[in-house]
């Protein structure tokens, strides 16, 4: 039944988008972090999506799910603010904050949430079609 694999395809997309949302949440939570446990300022993280072919060999290859291939760290230098009174200030009186861009993260969050909703909608459509298929010939 090819309709059942829609749940696998859309389910993989939903979990990938949830992971993206998770990363956005930790980026936003750390937007004003000065130094992490390792003494370095927090670096923004981004998920990288990759297509995951779901058909077994010889099967129709029209099922393409999504997987998170890696979580990449943004290597741009963090925001530096002159604040000599801050306990984490360096010798020149500068404090290095994390390199999270809050506006970018909000856009990322809205995009992830829309994609999540779209995939749920696809699953609902597939479910109602399957239910009608199960009643085939009964009416």
């Amino acid at each position: 039944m090819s309709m059942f694999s829609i749940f696998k395809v859309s389910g993989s997309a939903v979990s990938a988008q949830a992971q993206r949302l998770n990363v956005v949440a930790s980026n936003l939570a750390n937007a004003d972090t000065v130094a992490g446990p390792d003494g370095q300022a927090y670096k923004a993280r981004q998920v990288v999506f990759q297509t995951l072919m779901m058909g077994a060999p010889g099967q129709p290859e029209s099922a393409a799910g999504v997987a998170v291939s890696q979580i990449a760290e943004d290597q741009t230098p963090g925001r530096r603010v002159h604040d000599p009174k801050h306990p984490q200030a360096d010798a020149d009186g500068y404090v290095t904050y994390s390199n999270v861009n809050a506006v970018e993260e909000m856009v990322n969050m809205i995009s992830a949430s829309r994609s999540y909703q779209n995939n749920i909608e696809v699953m609902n459509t597939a479910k109602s079609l399957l239910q009608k298929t199960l009643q085939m010939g009964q009416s």
Partner: protein
Amino acid sequence: MLNRLTDTLDFQGQALALRSERQRLLASNIANADTPGYVARDMNFAQALRQATAAAPAARTLATSQPGHISGGAAGAAGSALEFATASQTNLDRNTVDMDRERASIADNSVRYEATLRFINAQVRTLTSAITGQ
């Protein structure tokens, strides 16, 4: 004699299988809406149905050595009717999924799927009322 009763159902059955395959194709496109480099695909339904209802010749398949490889021919009932969709608005990450188009196609395809189901149901009802006897 008996297979004449169900011959008419076969055509609708093929159409139903192709509709569900197209639905899965569109679901894959929506799932990959944010994947860089993904190229959206769609099915030429008329061609796929013509292929599926005609006597299918033995298809050649490509060798696959890795799980992600595409097997080439014999790709389900749709076969070579799969086409790449072009992007209506180009994207920096070379993703060609147009979410509006995909949502419209999903709505269209599910209505047509239901229509095919109703055709089948009506034919079954006709057959059962014919063989029940009053």
